[in-house]
Every structure is written in C-alpha cells, then in structure tokens.
C-alpha cells in the first residue's frame, strides 16, 4: 500500500487501505512526541501554511505542532487581518501562497467544498482542516486512531455519534471512515438535527440515547454549536441536556468500559456532565495527543506523494 494523493480532502475519497496506512503511519509517529527532543528532520525545508477562514485554536495549533515536530516551517495566516478582507478570492489567495513556494496549505473554511476547489486549482498539497458541513478528515482519523488504540480494532465495534449530526462535518467524516473500516455506526440526535436519508451512508439512526448507550462500545459526543443557532431549528440547551446529555446516571447503564470521546471544546452541562468529561471512561485528552501523531502522518504522506510525482 502506498500513498499517491497530493491532498487530503475527506474520508469519502479514501479507500479502506489508505485510511489504514494513515493510522499505521500515525502509530509510528506517536513515539516522536514522547522523546526529550520532540523533532525529526523528515520535512526539513518544507513550508506549511495554516490558512484559517474560521476561528480555531485546537486544530490550528495541533497542525502547527505536528508540522514543527517534522521540522517544517509553519506560517499562520489569520484571514481577518489579511487581504482576504480586501476581497481577494480563495483561488487567488491560494495561488499567491503557491507562488511563495510553500508546499502545503492547511485550510479551514466555512463553505463546504472549499478545500476540493482549492486543491484542483493548485499543484501544492491541500489538507482540509474542516470545510462547512462537509468534512473534517483529520478529526475523524484521530477519533478512529483513538478507538483502535483503546479497543484494538474497528471492525464490528458499535460506535454511536451523538449530537448535531445535521450540521457536523466531524460526524460526516467519522461516518465515512468508520463504515469503510467495518464498524456499526448509530447516529443519535433530536429528530430536527438528523439529516434526511442519512441511513444511505450505512448508519442506523435513533433519537433515544438510553437505547443507544446499551450496546455502544464507544460514543463520540459532538459539540452543540449554539453559536450557529439561527433560531427555530435548535433545541433549548436545558431541554437538550435532559434528553441527550451524557450524565453519570446514563453512563452507569452502559457497557462498563465504554469509551467517551468528544472533539472539543466541550460545553459542560450541555453535551455531557463534568463528571463524565473528567471520568474514567473519557479519552478526550488522549484524542488531543493522538491528533498530533495523525496530523504528522498526513503531512508526511502528502509530501511524499508530491515528491514521487515531481
């Protein structure tokens, strides 16, 4: 199995083998962050540009840490203070970054498909760090990496994704990846936040969290993005917590070793209680650590693919 793609745009576009190659490569990279000198020279002389059109701290910092541990140079562009404010188009911005001889653009954008469009327009690598409601591939890869590390496999696992499925790129990328690797995925949300025809992706749906918790080996609890609340379509926060919030009482009825995951940042007391977030089933901070290894693997593989072509 070798990697041939210059970009990482979404898990929809990857084969099972390609996903497994990223996970395997990430396993090797995890060790680098445990060294006293947390740096290897693999991407020395390469330049990675963080181009973020939406606010993000953890993903941007995670990519920056990953690139620096590979010895790449990292430039952060905050679009609020750049020429994007003067009306420059995305493609023009991308071509300018390419003209600076950067090697990789890591982009977050509020429009679904933005990364795909940029990748088609450029010869350099584009890594999607989240585009609209479409995909957030590295988040799903680190979720799957954590599942595999903790439970030893993905095939046959019962994984529940709980929360705002309709507006979540994290949910979409997880569904693509988990279904390809053979997990049984259930999405659980209030009816208004379940997209129609989501079953066509190979998942089951439910609006009863207690039922879902009975069989789950792991739950991935999504952030309720109340900052995107445009009024009618969102449930009341307190009402959501009562119906779907993951509490100690609810978890007590689940499998004893169920894994609780969350992509962060957590709304304590909305998606889950503090007791659960900090409890023994929670792997939320390990997800953050694993995110670095997964992003190192992705940066390394897309760089190698470009070298092969060139």
């Amino acid at each position, binding site marked *: 199995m*070798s*990697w041939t793609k210059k970009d990482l745009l979404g898990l929809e576009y990857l084969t099972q083998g390609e996903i497994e190659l990223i996970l*395997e*490569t990430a*396993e*090797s*990279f995890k*060790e*680098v962050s445990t*060294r*006293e*000198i947390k*740096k*290897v*020279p*693999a991407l020395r002389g390469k330049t990675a540009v963080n181009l973020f059109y939406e606010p993000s701290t953890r993903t941007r910092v995670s990519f920056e840490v990953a690139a620096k541990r*590979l010895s790449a140079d990292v430039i952060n562009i905050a679009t609020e203070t750049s020429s994007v404010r003067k009306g420059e188009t995305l493609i023009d911005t991308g071509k300018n970054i390419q003209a600076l001889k950067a090697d990789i653009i890591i982009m977050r954008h509020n429009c679904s498909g933005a990364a795909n469009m940029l990748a088609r327009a450029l010869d350099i690598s584009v890594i999607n760090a989240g585009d609209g409601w479409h995909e957030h591939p590295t988040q799903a890869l680190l979720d799957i990496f954590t599942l595999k590390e903790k439970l030893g496999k993905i095939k046959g696992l019962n994984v529940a994704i709980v929360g705002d499925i309709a507006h979540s790129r994290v949910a979409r990328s997880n569904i693509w990846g988990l279904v390809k690797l053979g997990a049984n995925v259930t999405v659980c949300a209030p009816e208004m936040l379940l997209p129609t025809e989501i079953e066509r992706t190979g998942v089951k749906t439910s609006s009863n969290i207690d039922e879902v918790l009975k069989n789950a080996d792991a739950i991935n609890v999504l952030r309720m993005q109340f900052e995107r609340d445009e009024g009618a379509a969102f449930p009341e926060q307190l009402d959501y917590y009562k119906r779907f919030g993951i509490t100690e009482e609810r978890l007590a009825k689940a499998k004893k070793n169920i894994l609780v995951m969350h992509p962060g940042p957590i709304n304590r007391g909305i998606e889950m209680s503090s007791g659960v977030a900090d409890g023994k089933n929670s792997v939320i901070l390990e997800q953050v650590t694993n995110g670095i290894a997964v992003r190192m*693997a992705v940066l*390394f*593989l897309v760089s*190698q*693919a470009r*070298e*092969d072509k060139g």
Partner: protein
Amino acid sequence: MKEKAKILDKEAINRSVMRIAHEIIEKNKGTADLCIVGIRNRGVYIAQRLAECIKKIEGKDIAVGALDITLYRDDLALASGQPLVRKTEIDFDINDKKLVLVDDVLYTGRTIRAALDALIDFGRPKSIQLAVLIDRGHRELPIRADFVGKNIPTSKQETVEVHLEESDASDVVLITEKE
C-alpha cells in the same frame, strides 16, 4: 534476480553472531553500561540474537532497542517508492551508555549516518560502536564498523540479501544479481 552465491548458511550466521558477541564483551571489558540498538528491520533481529549470546556468555541481560531511520534518510525527497515509517522503540535511557548499533549489511554508510543522527536525538551515549553481519564495501561516507561478521567484496550491480528466520523462511546470506 539470479542467485550467484551463498555466502553464509544458518550455522555460519550463528558462529558469526556468537563471535561478535565475544568481541563486544572483550572490547567493552564486560557488560557494564552496555546496550544494543538494532536498525529496522533485520538489524533488530541480529541485535536480539547478540543480546541472547551475551546473556549466555556473561549471564547478564542487555537492553535492546529498535530504531527506524526513515525520517532521517538523506534521500527522502528522492526516494523511489514510498518508505513505510515503522516504530522506533528505545525504552531505556541511552545517556552515558556504551551503545552498540547493529545492522545486517553495511554498504554506502548512509543508513548509519541517519541512525547516528537519530540516536543523538535520544541522548548522548558515552560511545557508539557499530556491529554488522556483512560489510560489502562501496562506502560513500567516512564510516567503518567495529565488529564485522563477514567482509564480502561485491560489485555495485550485485545485491546482498540477508534472510533471517524472524522475518524470512530461513537463515541465509546470498549474493544475487539482476538478470
């Protein structure tokens, strides 16, 4: 690939490894502060065999680590065919240790250069010595081995294949050439 010659069989490999183990103990005046790090993949198997031999001779356990040098290669940018990044596992402190680095074949010396850079990222050993099963010549860097199983003059068109039971069907060292 056409097989041209069988250089070492199972017994000869065992004898070479046992002799190198004796030489390591002799040169280091015992096993104090000694540790062994093998280069993936086959260097690791030879490293483990050396540690077993040293245990038989001296009755002491020697720490063995595994080093993957992919990320330190000087030809990463030119590599044809993607190298798979494998795990580095050095679970002990190498500071102030007498470290024996082990590989199956010493050729251009570039792998050893990469391994030395990688080891220095883990700490500052008191010394680094190099043990190889086969030295086939054609060095491109000023590197030499302290312990050699067998010196084999080769041409650059030839390939030295080391097969070990841990990863291959049997223990044997062959010289092959493209047909």
